């Protein structure tokens, strides 16, 4: 099938980059507190290079991404093409250290590791 919300189109988007986020608004201007939380968490880890898709700009994508992941809400975070969860889960992963590990598997070194090193020096 065609259209920006089709399974094929969504698949292409989630596989286009190691870190892909479907959100409301943009990383520069999030339009929802939960989407903003995802952006802020990624920023804390020094992840600034990722694909962000504003579902408010594309109703077909907005529905298509929910069908694809069988997940009813936005934001949605994909790591290495795999759906990881929304804002609550990303926050948990950030707090329990899982996000640092998942980023490492993608070859991304979390900025928090360097922050810890700096603290150890003091």
């Amino acid at each position: 099938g065609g259209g920006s919300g089709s399974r094929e189109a969504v698949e292409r988007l989630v596989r286009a980059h190691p870190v892909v986020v479907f959100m409301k608004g943009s990383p520069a201007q999030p339009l929802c507190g939960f989407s903003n939380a995802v952006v802020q968490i990624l920023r804390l880890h020094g992840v600034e290079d990722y694909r962000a898709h504003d579902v408010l700009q594309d109703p077909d994508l907005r529905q298509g991404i929910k069908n694809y992941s069988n997940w009813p809400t936005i934001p949605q975070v994909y790591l290495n093409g795999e759906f990881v969860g929304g804002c609550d889960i990303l926050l948990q992963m950030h707090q329990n250290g899982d996000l640092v590990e998942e980023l490492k598997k993608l070859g991304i070194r979390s900025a928090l590791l360097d922050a810890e090193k700096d603290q150890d020096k003091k």
Partner: protein
Amino acid sequence: GPLARAIRAKLDAALQPTHLQVLDESSRHGGPPGAETHFAVVVVSGRFAGLPPLQRHRLVHAALRAELAGPLHALAIVARTPQQWESDPRVPPRPPCLGGSKHERRGAA
């Protein structure tokens, strides 16, 4: 309100929680108090044992499928086993609203 009651009833039936909080957070997202569009749920259930967070949240979504297809616009979830809740009954602070609902044509998730 009626949606809060429906959410509570569905989660009770599906997950037999030992602890359940259903919070209408609509007023924190630009809606009038009691708007029943944005909810947060704290669900403590033995059904979550052995399940990663994604699967726990999917169980909650499955119980609330009808509501999520309808008036329930956003749902924040805390899903813990009874042991986890006992050792940590704190709930993370909610992200502040950025008025996103105002940018949408209709209240749809």
